[in-house]
């Protein structure tokens, strides 16, 4: 079948959404300390790598089609994408893959600076399989919340156009669970060095996220009217949220910050995600302001309650995700005069559906994530050693440092790779050492200081 405008739009949208995950890597990576920036970025990059493979093999199959108890699809139905025959089937698979990729990557911001990279590489595919795919199936794949699903029929279908529950609430809850299991960074709430090391990178990340979000929200649009509404709402809500966050900062702290502007943009984008096709532009402005202010206030909760959600995944994605999802109960536009939120005379029906969807997503994500994360934490351990944390996870986990600007810095010597395969057996241990012990198992050198 020849390419139609819809196909082109979906392919472009999918590329835009894929670009968001590296954008997230910068958004997050700029907020960590310099000695943990690469690890932070790697958690996003590896999500692309692993989920990309998982999606081709069984993920796509599990998130649509004939399912099991309206909860999840059959992983073997189109395993390896065999048997997909509709013309745009593979385009849709690609588009869907990018959502799964970014959702799991979003979680990583909560556990910056202290998670074992090996544990993360186990968490990613398991979580996508057991948490993301079922929720995506229930909301979008014809499951529980769909028009034909048990809950959808009971309460009326919940609206989640682009992923308020599936992506943001889901990731936000998982982030919270991980923090509670892994624990806080050393020095959390006390150490003044926990400040963002590269704010331009945060702004670059926010810019890429915004850019890509036009694909994220808009990709599924099928008419010009819908496309236009989504586009304008994806501009309006984050613009208003940026202002909301900045005004909050100005009033509370005395200064509007650039980190606040970038954060406000993301909060607004999160809030408009489920609602983008179902609220008016002015509704989007209002939703944006609320999300911006609420998330600006919510990022303080972690200090008050003592959970080290390092880069505020809960404060931004969970809080604004809930706001956007629930707001639809009030400001959803009627469709051809029917339904709509409370403010449009649609009665409370939509609100119940939205609350149910949010609640079930929270509950499902919380329970399953707890099981997965605990299993990993109790077996292989999810957290690096104290020493590795002090040295910095870039060096201790990846044997790299992000920057080397200068002269007179480090010195040292260089050992080129003469053997194609040196046969070193890595142990994942910190290459940095203390006590004159060269701990890098790779080299076998070990010398104790006098």
């Amino acid at each position: 079948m020849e390419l139609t405008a819809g196909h082109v739009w979906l392919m472009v949208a999918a590329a835009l959404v894929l670009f968001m995950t590296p954008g997230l890597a910068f958004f997050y990576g700029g907020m960590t300390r310099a000695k943990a920036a690469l690890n932070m970025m790697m958690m996003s990059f590896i999500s692309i790598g692993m989920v990309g493979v998982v999606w081709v093999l069984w993920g796509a199959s599990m998130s649509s089609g004939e399912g099991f108890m309206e909860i999840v699809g059959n992983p073997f139905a189109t395993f390896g994408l065999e048997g997909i025959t509709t013309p745009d089937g593979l385009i849709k698979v690609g588009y869907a893959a990018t959502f799964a990729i970014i959702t799991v990557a979003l979680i990583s911001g909560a556990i910056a600076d202290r998670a074992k990279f090996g544990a993360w590489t186990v968490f990613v595919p398991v979580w996508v399989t057991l948490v993301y795919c079922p929720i995506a199936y229930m909301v979008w794949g014809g499951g529980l919340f769909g028009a034909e699903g048990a809950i959808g029929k009971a309460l009326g279908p919940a609206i989640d156009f682009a992923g308020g529950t599936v992506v943001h609430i889901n990731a936000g809850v998982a982030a919270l669970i991980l923090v509670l299991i892994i624990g806080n960074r050393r020095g959390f709430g006390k150490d003044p060095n926990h400040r963002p090391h590269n704010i331009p990178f945060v702004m670059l990340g926010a810019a890429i996220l915004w850019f890509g979000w036009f694909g994220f929200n808009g990709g599924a649009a099928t008419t010009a009217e819908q496309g236009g509404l989504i586009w304008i709402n994806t501009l309006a809500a984050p613009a208003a949220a940026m202002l909301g966050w900045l005004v909050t900062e100005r009033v509370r702290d005395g200064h509007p910050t650039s980190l606040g502007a970038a954060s406000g943009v993301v909060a607004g984008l999160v809030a408009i995600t489920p609602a983008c096709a179902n609220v008016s532009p002015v509704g989007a402005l209002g939703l944006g302001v609320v999300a911006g202010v609420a998330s600006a206030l919510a990022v303080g909760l972690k200090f008050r309650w003592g959970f080290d959600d390092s880069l505020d995944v809960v404060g931004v994605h969970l809080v604004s995700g809930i706001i956007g999802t629930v707001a639809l109960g009030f400001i959803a536009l009627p469709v051809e005069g029917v339904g709509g939120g409370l403010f449009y005379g649609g009665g409370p029906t939509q609100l119940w559906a939205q609350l149910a969807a949010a609640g079930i997503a929270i509950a499902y994500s919380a329970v399953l994530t707890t099981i997965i994360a605990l299993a990993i934490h109790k077996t292989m351990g999810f957290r690096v050693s104290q020493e590795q944390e002090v040295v910095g996870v870039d060096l201790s986990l990846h044997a790299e440092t992000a920057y080397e600007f200068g002269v007179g810095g480090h010195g040292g010597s260089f050992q080129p790779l003469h053997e194609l395969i040196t046969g070193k057996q890595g142990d994942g241990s910190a290459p940095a050492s203390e006590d004159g012990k060269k701990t890098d198992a790779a080299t076998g050198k070990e010398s104790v200081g006098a």
Partner: protein
Amino acid sequence: MKLITAIVRPEKLDSIREGLESYGVQGLTVSAASGYGRQRGYTEVYRGAEYNVDLLPKIRVEVLATDEQADDILDVIIASSNTGRAGDGKVWTVDVFEAVRVRTGERGSAAI
């Protein structure tokens, strides 16, 4: 007067400052350095090639003190930066011929 220079672990800056402040020191100067001694370095790997870094990051803390206080300050610094492991660093003292506070032009002990 004496100038006490300490080359110590970067992560000890806070405890040194606390120690000195509670002893009553009112000012100090910090700068970045790197060095090697008994402590061994670490290895970075880029595209499979190993870069052995053996100059490790340190900070230099400098305190100007009167002759009487110098010894105590030395002890405070050592106490607050010692971990007992290689890489703890070195502290040394040199005689200062003259010291001036730029703001007021005060000289000698008054400048400290």
